């Protein structure tokens, strides 16, 4: 037995089995075993309140917590050709897709949105590991291209949350071609002088790591996220030896110079606001829970009003460093 069977597999299993019991009010932390009340867990962004273990979070929930007041506008992603290779393994690809859609309630493995974080307009993309392992097919490629085009059009930075087992085998070579394709999207951002920030979440592997997920101006990872090109199982099979503890985990990559930062999910929002605003040359953000943005497009002048008066608005408590933006 090794840590893959003891540790990774139970966690992957738990990710997949969790959706089958949404009625369950209590959830067991798959790291420390503590029973966590669902509301408390979701308020803590699916980070175990006992041991700090980061569990999977759906893109929609992540965006609700990321954007000011939980408000964001979804960007439509062009529909790719369905089942371009007429792929059959033991199941037909369209059947696998339908099953994933039913299980997640999402159309595909990536969500694109615009909104504001700390009053800073951004475009955000999040990959959904629950949807066929977040795998990168043509839809994911389309989503990244659409996000980059939108960011360039609106002159906004792009923040991308990656989570994927790699390329989508059922789209064969066309999924592989999303590697150069998404790289073109990254180049559009760089040419427009717009920040591209990547947050690598558990797990980010294969062709995804070897393309857009490693090309950020800033590379941040969530704690203990598995980040690699070849998975640990493949390497152990190739080498026939055990890998060191923590191999290919976020902290290990940080030690080896492959990341800028490892940041807990609960501190990510503040950090992203701070980094984005510095890269854009904007003044420091107003901290704390912010109401949804005004209906009018926000001009980039800071709004000192809420902070300046000695009697802060009840809706905007002073900053605590906690990135909890539930309205």
């Amino acid at each position, binding site marked *: 037995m090794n840590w893959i069977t003891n540790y990774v597999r139970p966690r992957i299993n738990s990710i997949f089995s969790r959706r089958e019991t949404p009625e369950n009010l209590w959830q067991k932390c798959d790291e420390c075993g503590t029973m966590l009340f669902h509301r408390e867990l979701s308020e803590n962004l699916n980070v175990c309140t006992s041991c700090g273990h980061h569990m999977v979070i759906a893109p929609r929930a992540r965006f609700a917590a990321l954007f000011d007041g939980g408000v964001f506008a979804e960007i439509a992603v062009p529909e*790719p*050709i*369905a*089942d*371009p*290779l*007429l*792929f*059959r*393994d*033991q199941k037909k690809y369209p059947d696998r897709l339908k099953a994933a859609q039913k299980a997640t309630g999402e159309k595909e493995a990536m969500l694109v949105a615009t909104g504001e974080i700390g009053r800073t307009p951004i475009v955000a993309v999040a990959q959904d590991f629950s949807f066929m392992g977040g795998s990168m097919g*043509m839809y994911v*490629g*389309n989503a990244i*291209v659409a996000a980059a085009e939108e960011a360039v059009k609106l002159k906004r930075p792009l923040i991308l949350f990656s989570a994927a087992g790699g*390329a989508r*085998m059922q*789209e*064969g*070579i*066309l*999924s*592989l*071609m*999303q*590697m*150069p*394709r998404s*790289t*073109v999207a*990254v*180049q559009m951002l760089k040419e427009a002088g717009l920040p591209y920030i990547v947050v690598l979440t558990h797990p980010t592997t*294969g*062709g995804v*790591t*070897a*393309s*857009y*997920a*490693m*090309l950020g101006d800033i590379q941040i990872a969530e704690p203990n996220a598995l*980040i*690699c*090109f*070849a998975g640990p199982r*493949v*390497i152990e099979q*190739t*080498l026939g030896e055990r*890998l060191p503890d923590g*191999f*290919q985990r976020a902290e290990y990559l940080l030690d*080896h*110079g*492959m990341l800028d930062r490892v940041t807990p999910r609960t501190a990510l929002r503040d950090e992203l606001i701070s980094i984005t605003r510095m890269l854009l040359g904007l003044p420091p953000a107003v901290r704390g829970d912010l109401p949804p943005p005004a209906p009018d497009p926000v001009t980039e002048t800071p709004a000192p009003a809420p902070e300046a008066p000695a009697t802060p608005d009840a809706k905007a408590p002073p900053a605590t460093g906690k990135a909890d933006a539930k309205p």
Partner: protein
Amino acid sequence: MTQYLDFEKPLAEIEGKAEELRALARTNTEMDVADEAAALDAKAAKLLDDLYKDLTPWRKCQIARHPERPHCKDYIAELFTEFTPLAGDRNFADDLAVIGGLARFQDRPVMVIGHEKGHDTKSRIERNFGMARPEGYRKAVRLMKTADRFGLPVVTLVDTAGAYPGKGAEERGQSEAIARSTEVCLQVGVPLVSVIIGEGGSGGAVAFATANRVAMLEHSIYSVISPEGCASILWKNAEKMREAAEALRLTAQDLKKLGVIDRIITEPKGGAHRARTETMETVGTAIAQMLKDLDGKDRAALIADRRRKFLDMGSKGLAA
């Protein structure tokens, strides 16, 4: 002499018999075996025709991996002059799985880069069977940038099972190295042409094949994952590689239909390994034509051409 693939067994028998007859005749001059040997030759030729007429994707994988198939080094020796290998990534090591350097192609100075698998046990180990580590991709990045600075076209020869899945490779940023190489392929303002001469294995291939023009030898393969790998994941059984090879659409013929490659280079009957020089010459002609296609395009046009090409990937499916 020739190494036969499993599906070529019957062919091996006939060709073996013909060879035996001729050997016998050499030691025994009174024997006249010419007619009989010729008949066997004809039979073998017919069988070879039949075998190669309608190859399954899995058989193509086997041919693409044939140990006697011409490799990168062979092409460089045959098609280029003044080859001057340039080594190292200026950071950690020189990765021998990737060969690169200055050379002349039909007198024109170019930068040639490719994966080299090696041809015997010693060279295969030395070259890590053509599976590059981050240093290989970083060397390629360095060479592409040099080519870009001096306006030299880049020719890449792709032949790898994939990037090396090793501990050190991961620690030194295999994925970042591949991503960066792909990025630089898209950035260079010089013509970049690529030929998949054997195996185009996943990200390790994309890192060199993100080119203005991509050609594939008739029996080479290009895939997101090896058929064995795909079979073990989707069929939970690596023995189902035939089915996986079928499903993945990894042949030059399918990839042309999907718009992933621009041209197919015909191989001699019985595959590249049966007529190595002839194959290499045909590849040379294809490289010359691809470079000619790009003549007269300036930096911006070359970059825009590559971008358009890869942004359009996925606009064609196989469905009727």
